[in-house]
């Protein structure tokens, strides 16, 4: 239950507020990661927490991701509810074993006897020329592996509510926030990044997609910053007489397949917009879901606008060409509806 609110926050502040509120009510919640304390998180997700809760509960770590993410696993199975930050998702390669083989599988191996209530926060996404080792989203990769819930908020409201849900969840939850959607002062200015956020604590359910925009001619399924791009594209398409429905998945695991199928059954067309690499990932999964669930409804083959299967290049014109854009979305929908 949430009340209406006029208060607007950026997504970054909404995340930090969600963590702060859970820390206030649950002493087992603590935060650790690189630069989460004094610095407040490189992307501000832990802003203000050190001052409020002190260095015992907001812990700056050495650059030892295997060590401290594994420590989060150990703390989680021993009565704590750690929130542990992997500064950029791109760094997963130095610590993936602890994430996918340990954090994600202990509950299963133990036959349900042991719970691992950890939240793994991480920044994702490109668009500001941080090149191939700092710009990836990689959510398809994490969603491919069993045992982790994977959430990706696109709005300030969802960001706070999903964070509180993630902390209270008895499972490991990977919480991926898109740098470009945070509303950071020093990042590309993004009007969608700020929105109404109730002051009180509330949850947003993990595993439920959100209809970000209703429409009748085409379904655009997407997540993260691309929701904003899709909204901008939909506004342009509206002017051309094309009505796009936008599904913001909000979580990849569990995946709200019903929402995808229902929308495609209504619009008969599907575009998937995915900032992750195109092949062997989310876009193929969403298309398969739609094809299997709405085979007889599809008027055209589903299409995808994704990051091609190339490392994300540094130079501005290269990167701009590589990542999904409003233009590419408009062009893809236009071709689909006219084809």
């Amino acid at each position, binding site marked *: 239950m949430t009340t209406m609110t006029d208060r607007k926050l950026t997504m970054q502040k909404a995340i930090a507020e969600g963590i702060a509120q859970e820390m206030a009510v649950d002493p087992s919640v*603590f935060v650790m990661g690189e630069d989460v304390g004094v610095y407040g998180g490189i992307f501000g997700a832990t802003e203000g927490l050190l001052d409020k809760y002190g260095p*015992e509960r907001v812990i700056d*770590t*050495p650059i*030892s991701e*295997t*060590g*401290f*993410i*594994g*420590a*989060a*696993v*150990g*703390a*989680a*199975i*021993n*009565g*704590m509810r*750690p929130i542990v930050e992997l500064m950029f998702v791109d760094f997963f390669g130095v610590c993936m*074993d*602890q994430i996918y*083989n*340990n954090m994600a*599988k*202990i*509950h*299963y*191996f*133990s*036959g*349900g*006897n*042991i*719970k691992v209530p950890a939240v793994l926060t991480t920044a994702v996404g490109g668009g500001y020329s941080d090149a191939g080792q700092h710009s990836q989203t990689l959510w398809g990769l994490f969603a491919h592996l*069993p*045992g982790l*819930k994977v959430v990706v908020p696109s709005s300030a409201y969802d960001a706070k509510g999903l964070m509180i849900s993630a902390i209270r969840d*008895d*499972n490991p939850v990977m919480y991926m926030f898109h740098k470009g959607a945070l509303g950071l002062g020093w990042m590309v200015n993004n009007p969608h990044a700020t929105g109404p956020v109730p002051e009180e604590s509330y949850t947003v359910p993990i595993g439920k997609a959100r209809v970000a925009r209703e429409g009748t001619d085409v379904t655009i399924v997407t997540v993260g910053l691309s929701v904003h791009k899709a909204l901008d594209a939909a506004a342009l398409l509206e002017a051309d007489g094309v009505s796009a429905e936008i599904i913001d998945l909000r979580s990849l695991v569990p995946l709200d397949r019903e929402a995808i199928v229902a929308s495609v059954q209504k619009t008969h067309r599907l575009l998937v917009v995915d900032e992750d690499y195109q092949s062997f990932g989310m876009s193929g999964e969403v298309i398969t879901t739609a094809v299997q669930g709405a085979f007889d409804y599809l008027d055209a083959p589903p299409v995808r606008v994704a990051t091609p299967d190339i490392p994300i290049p540094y130079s501005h014109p290269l990167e701009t060409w590589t990542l999904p854009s409003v233009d590419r979305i408009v062009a893809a929908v236009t071709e689909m509806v006219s084809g």
Partner: protein
Amino acid sequence: MDIPKAHLVDMYETMVRIRRFEERIRELYFADKLPAFDIAAGLIPGEMHLAAGQEPVAVGMRPHLHPGDAITATHRPHHVAIAQGVDLNKMAAEIFGRETGLGQGKGGHMHLFSVEPNFGCSGIIGEGMPVAVGAAMAFKARGTGNIALSYFGEGAANQGAFHESLNLAALWKLPVVFICEDNAYAISVPKASSTAIPDNSDRASAYGIPGVLVPENDPVAVYEVMGAAMDRARRGDGPSLIEIKTDRLWGHFEGDADAYRSDEFKEDMNVRDPLVAFGKRLVEEGVLSEAEQAAIKEKEYATVEAAIDFALASPYPAPEAALNHVFA
């Protein structure tokens, strides 16, 4: 030996129990896999890493354990699990893939998890070390007075997780004891081909913590060194690194031809079998007579047999049960 007799007896009993368990698992492992060994066949399919010979490493800490202390062990976990007191019936049932197992058959021999006692292990080298660090963080934050023990092989000491875990534990002065089981081999690779210095215990200086080498595979020596390290951790004085020279009497896994170790090496190892040696010493020092040892054997053998009977009498899980417990 100025060790309470009860501790000596307890360690001996536990060593007997461990050895018997490993022997019986070995027999049953091979029973229906031979003559043409098929790893997928039989009552216990899959890889099987047994720890016969490494009992001292496990039992030495046992008298110093408190309820709630956490242990993380390796792919070769049985001796440590038994020494901590993990339910032997459920452990056997897990190894036989039964519904009554610790993990209802989902984990198997490399993935034994128990809440009370607080035990876990893993199939990935070094994976348990950061977990022990985190357990110690939780104990410190919650003020439980508990400590964490992290077991790992000498091969694991060259894995990055070793370095990160020791640094974190030392930096944060956490109640952890790191125990390197140095059986001189990582599968076929001898220590000298993998480790740039002779003794991993010397690596403690890279973290400013005590490093202690236990040069003999002897429960009493382990008892003493582990006692001091565990006390230190419990007192709040931070972690220690202990390296114990021990022997893996059998192959790396069952079915391993073990051709990479010389006959002489294997013979020497068997001559110094720690169970035999400890038994002799207990007789010599008047702690346990041969007759008393025989009685212990009988009792422990029966305990092991009961666990195996329990396992064999338990049903397999229903196939679709595979879907349960992915999420809580």
